[in-house]
């Protein structure tokens, strides 16, 4: 049971941290329409966060709710992937982070719709339309940015290279992930990775970007609560009010 709670928290934490990062771009998008789209994606992810947390809190049965999980855990209790806590950077950085995540997220959620756990399958079903849209959008923008001006191409390529070492953590399954695969709850890593590499290769080819080596060294630790220095700042801002006034109703 703890294993499943952990797995659900990982799903929720990923969505929450990325949602928080995208929310920071509100009013700063490169165009009004892009601003709308970014915040739309942020809202989608926040909605998904709530569903994962709600289920995790129920299974845990320790009296924690979604707010407790979001606002009263510190960095070492957060299990999001390192990729998602990387700074927004420029627009190519933001979109590349999104693209790496969306590609994995889409295939994961698609796999989770066939989960042996009916509640997980239902949440995945509900999220599938959203993540399909996210994937289409970020792939489209990577092509637009990569296959355009020299400057945009250079920035997009450098975003691809810089974030690459954070892209593989999701495929490094540990005991928790493996237990979920055995129970038929989560899809296996190699299956997801094959889909991920194929899709990224396809989009990069269209975007005239060079794909870094698939077997490159990958940074890990986020899922186990070992984070980069960025997460502490994200949480400090996100949790401030609840830390200052614990238990306040709003």
């Amino acid at each position, binding site marked *: 049971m703890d294993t499943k709670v952990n797995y659900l928290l990982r799903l929720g934490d990923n969505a929450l941290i990325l949602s928080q990062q995208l929310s920071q771009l509100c009013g700063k998008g490169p165009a*009004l*329409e892009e601003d709308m*789209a970014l915040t*739309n994606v942020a809202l989608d992810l926040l909605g998904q966060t709530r569903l994962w947390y709600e289920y995790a809190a129920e299974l845990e049965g320790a009296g924690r709710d979604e707010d407790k999980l979001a606002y009263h855990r510190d960095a070492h209790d957060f299990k999001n992937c390192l990729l998602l806590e990387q700074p927004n950077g420029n627009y190519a950085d933001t979109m590349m982070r999104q693209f790496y995540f969306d590609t994995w997220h889409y295939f994961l959620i698609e796999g989770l719709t066939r989960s042996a756990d009916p509640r997980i399958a239902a949440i995945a079903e509900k999220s599938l339309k959203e993540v399909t*849209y996210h994937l289409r959008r970020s792939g489209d923008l990577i092509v637009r940015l990569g296959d355009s001006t020299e400057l945009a191409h250079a920035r997009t390529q450098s975003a691809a290279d810089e974030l690459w070492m954070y892209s593989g953590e999701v495929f490094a399954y540990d005991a928790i992930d493996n237990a979920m695969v055995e129970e038929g709850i989560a899809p296996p890593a190699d299956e997801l990775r094959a889909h991920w590499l194929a899709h990224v290769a396809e989009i990069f080819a269209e975007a005239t970007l060079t794909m870094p080596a698939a077997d490159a060294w990958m940074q890990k630790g986020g899922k186990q609560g070992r984070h980069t220095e960025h997460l502490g700042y994200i949480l400090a801002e996100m949790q401030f009010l609840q830390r200052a006034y614990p238990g306040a109703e709003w």
Partner: protein
Amino acid sequence: MSKEWPLWEVFIRSQHGLAHKHVGSLHAPDAEMAVNNARDVYTRRNEGVSIWVVRAADIVASSPGDKGALFEPANSKVYRHPTFFPMPAEVKNL
């Protein structure tokens, strides 16, 4: 902005709507993005809607000065208005 992000007019047919209605406009670099943005801005991604986007430059409008010449003649001739025919009850949406 204006050259690279031309203005698009957005027409939406809602879930149970019969025809596309003009709902507003937006700027986008091309048609595909205009459709994406229209969905984000004007439909909140509702199921079962149809979106048309048209470059504002491609729309030809009647000029307000022609109003009289275009629409006036019919107003004084009631026999031009099909209002004297009782409609069968089965015919709807006319």
